[in-house]
Every structure is written in structure tokens, then in C-alpha cells.
């Protein structure tokens, strides 16, 4: 026997490549079968992963909805012009016409002092007190709708309008929106932090499950090592196990969030009715779903990889 470690009838390379792919498939099915054989453990692990991931998932959807609602506000940012009390009706209407023709303005709406007062009388509940006033304290108002554009353009427009002699106060209705955006920005960052923490938790959960799995199959690992299995061969079923945990956990978390949103949808419809608004709940898009499932699967793979790297090398036949 001349060759140092020449095998006498080793399978041909092409066969070995297809056998390699076949082993991948086998490991995949084998690990799935292991999961199927131990349903309680699997369900518990997968449920923990699902619940853990549903939190960042839910937060994400919440923010997505807030973003959509506030986006509606942003597109309708208006400038309210309160004219001086000494500006006459005729002059005010002329001004409105002038503003309408400006390049950055889409439309304007004129609310005369009288109609403002009338509206106030009807809605405020102070009708009687208003009647005691000797003169109308409300100014003419022009609501200016700017063309859609950046904040800078709107600010410029605001400054131009404010500089007009007839205009007493020019007010951009987006100041509160900016505060809201800042709050949303803080919330977004919090969601990122929460997501990182929970992803880490999932990593630990899967790592620990795979570690237990490795311990349970200690004997099998020893035997296969003695028979000449490479580390990669031994690693494979465990990595696929992690992938399955991640994938199933991702699907569970998706279900949890979807069910949660269905539960919210009812009261939200009533809220819509009360506010005469038409807020529509946004749930996961297909794109979101794919991202959720992919990242949970990758977390599963990473978790099992860590466990396998840490524990598999320590198992050597003695």
C-alpha cells in the first residue's frame, strides 16, 4: 500500500459534490425531524423566540403607522396670516389675490372677521359674552397653502408673508409637528436599541438550545468523529437546527403582531368614526415580512454557530 493516505476507492469528485449537497439536504431534514420528534421543547423555544421578536416587530409597526399619519400632516402644512385689525375687507381680499399669485403658493382661503366671529360664536359656547363686546376682536385671516417642498422653502415664504405691512402675525402650523417628529425620532432610536437587545436575547436563546442539543447528542458526536467525520459534517445538522428555530420563531412573531393588530383594528375604527378621520392601520408589508423572517433565520444561524463553535470543539473522543 504505497500512497500515504490514498484511499483505494474513493468516490469520484462529481459524486462527492452531489453527496455533499445531499448531506446538506439530509442535515436539513434530519434537524427538522429532530424538531418534530421533540415538539414540546421546540414549541417552547420557538414561542420564546417568537414573543421576543414580536416586541421589536410590534414597535416597528407602531412607528410605521405614526409615520404614515404624521406624513399626512406634513403634506398639509399651512401658514395662517392674521391681518391687522385696521385692514379693511377690500384690502384684505386684494392681498389674498396677490398671495394666490405667488409662485410658492398653491391656494389660499380667506376668512373674514365677521365669519370668524360667527364661527366662534357658534362653536365656543361663549356666544352671549361675545355679544357684549363693542367691537369684533378677531382679525381677517388668510390661510395659505404652500406648494409641497422642503422646510426651507416654507420658512422663506413665511418670512416674505410676515414682512407684508398688512400682516400682523404669520404662523406656520408645523411647529407642533416638528416636536412630534422629534418625539418620533426618539422613539425610532429606542426601537433600534430594543431591537438590538432583543436580537441579542434571541441569539442567546438559540445558542443555549443548541448547546443543550449538542450535550444530548454527545455520544453521537464522539462516534462520528471516530469514524472520520469532519468538523463541518458534525456542525451541519446543528446549524440547520438553529436556522429552523429562527425561521419558525420569526413566523410566530409575525403571527403575534398580526393578531395584535387585528385586536386593535376594532377600537381604531370607532376612533376614526369619532374623529371623522380615516386612519388606516398599516400591517407588515410583504417586504417587511421577508425582512423579519430573514433576520430571525440569520439570528438562528448565528446563535447556533456561536454554540457550535464554543462547544463542539471541546468534544473529543478520549
Amino acid at each position, binding site marked *: 500500500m504505497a500512497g500515504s493516505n490514498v484511499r483505494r476507492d474513493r468516490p469520484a469528485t462529481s*459524486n462527492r459534490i452531489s453527496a455533499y449537497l445531499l448531506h446538506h439536504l439530509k442535515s436539513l431534514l434530519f434537524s427538522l425531524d429532530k424538531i418534530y420528534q421533540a415538539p414540546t421543547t421546540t414549541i417552547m423555544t420557538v414561542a420564546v423566540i417568537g414573543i421576543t421578536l414580536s416586541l421589536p416587530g410590534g414597535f416597528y409597526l407602531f412607528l410605521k403607522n405614526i409615520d404614515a399619519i404624521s406624513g399626512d400632516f406634513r403634506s398639509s402644512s399651512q401658514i395662517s396670516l392674521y391681518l391687522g385689525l385696521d385692514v379693511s375687507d377690500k384690502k384684505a381680499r386684494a392681498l389674498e389675490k396677490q398671495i394666490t399669485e405667488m409662485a410658492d403658493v398653491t391656494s389660499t382661503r380667506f376668512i373674514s372677521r365677521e365669519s370668524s366671529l360667527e364661527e366662534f360664536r357658534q362653536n365656543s359656547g361663549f356666544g352671549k359674552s361675545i355679544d357684549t363686546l363693542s367691537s369684533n376682536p378677531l382679525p381677517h385671516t388668510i390661510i395659505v397653502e404652500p406648494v409641497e417642498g422642503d422646510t426651507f422653502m416654507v420658512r422663506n415664504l413665511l418670512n416674505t408673508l410676515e414682512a407684508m405691512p398688512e400682516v400682523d402675525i404669520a404662523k406656520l402650523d408645523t411647529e407642533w409637528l416638528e416636536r412630534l417628529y422629534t418625539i418620533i425620532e426618539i422613539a425610532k432610536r429606542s426601537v433600534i436599541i430594543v431591537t438590538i437587545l432583543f436580537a441579542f436575547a434571541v441569539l442567546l436563546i438559540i445558542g443555549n438550545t443548541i448547546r443543550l442539543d449538542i450535550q444530548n447528542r454527545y455520544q*453521537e458526536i464522539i462516534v462520528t468523529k471516530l469514524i*472520520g467525520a469532519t468538523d463541518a459534517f458534525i456542525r451541519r445538522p446543528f446549524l440547520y437546527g438553529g436556522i429552523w428555530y429562527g425561521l419558525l420563531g420569526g413566523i410566530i412573531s409575525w403571527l403575534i403582531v398580526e393578531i395584535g393588530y387585528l385586536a386593535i383594528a376594532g377600537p381604531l375604527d370607532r376612533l376614526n368614526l369619532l374623529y371623522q378621520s380615516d386612519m388606516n392601520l398599516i400591517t407588515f408589508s410583504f417586504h417587511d415580512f421577508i425582512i423579519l423572517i430573514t433576520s430571525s433565520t440569520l439570528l438562528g444561524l448565528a446563535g447556533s454557530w456561536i454554540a457550535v463553535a464554543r462547544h463542539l470543539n471541546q468534544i473529543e473522543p478520549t
Partner: protein
Amino acid sequence: MIEFHNVTKRYEGGFEALSNVSLKLDDGDMAFLTGHSGAGKSTLLKIIALIEKPTRGQALLNRINLNNLARHRVPYIRRNIGIIFQDHQLLFDRPVFDNVALPLQIQGYRPQEIAKRTRAALDKVGLLNKEKSLPITLSGGEQQRVGIARAVVHKPMLLLADEPTGNLDPVLSREIMEIFVDFNQVGVTVLVASHDLGLIEELDKPRITLNNGQLILNDLADTEQEAYSGWK
């Protein structure tokens, strides 16, 4: 096939399991490794199977130095060896067929080839009708035969057996040993550790005897001396 040059194995704590052991087992040889328990038989087999490394001296398998083999090469070297354990080391969660097929799967054979060779190996140990049974349902002798089938299914060049008949009655022991002799006759190098002296006597094969880690009898000594002088 196997060459030991002044191999010493000292375990942590100072226990010396092998002291200055030199021997040579040629291709196609069959030998028995004997000695009382604790004499170093298992350690010697473990060094060949790359489970332990010599503390001093040199161990060669097919002229490959086993002392400082890179970790990633170990599996490929082991594929040339079939190992039979006293306690079979079968995997009880899968049927006999899957147990025996394992070495072939590891080495990347195709399913048809795996089925063919696995059945051939099972046939050789007389267990073809048990391929679907779970190992737990088999008797001790049958389990050991499954272990042998698994050790030979990939046609290794070297067969190592550590007390393969340790738990079996004399009739079964003889059957098992005769299987080894059969394999040797078709060219497989065989090294069997055993203390079943009566049976070894009957089979009339060279003996290597260890006592407290030292080689006290070596029926292969002539060839060993030859090789050793040539080596220097």
C-alpha cells in the same frame, strides 16, 4: 502500516501508560494485543486512532507521523481505520442500516452506493435481515456484529478492535474473532486488543504483550528489529 519508535505516553498526573514501546505491524498482518487491564493496550490503540498523542517517541501510520498532525487532517486519517469498541458505540436513535451506513455518508458516497455497500457489510456479519431493527432490540453479539459491519463498511486498510469480545460468551467470541480473521485474509491489517488468551492461542496469530506499559512479548519482533536497524 503501523510503526512505533520508542513511544512513551504519560498522562497528566504522571501515570505512564506506555514506556518506550517500539513495534511494527506490516500491511496485511494480523496481531493480538494482550496484557492485563491497565497494561496500556487501550492507550496504544488510542495513539493509532489519533485519540491520544505520544508524549515521547514517534508513532507512524502509513508513514504519516501521528505526533503532530494538523487537526483538520485527523478525520481523513481516521477514514483509513475501522474501529471496533468493546461497548459497540452504536447510535440507538436510528436503525441498524443507518448505523452501518454512517461512515459512507461521512465520506460522501452516493445513496445507491451506500445501500449496496451497507447491505454487503451486513451480509458479511450475518445481519442482513436486521437492517431495519433498532440496535436496542438486538442481542449483545448482534450489536457487536453491527459495530463490526460499521467498522468495515468503508473498506478500511486497518481494523482496530478494543476488547471486541469482552462482553460475549465463548461461542459468540469465537464467531467474532473468526470474522476478523476473514477480513485479514482479504488483505485488511488487523490489530485486536484482547485478554481472551484461550481464544488467541487457538487462532495462532502473532501476539504483542504489554505489561505496565512495557512491551514484554513481541511475536513480530524479527521484522521490527529489521525495520528498526534499517531505520537508523
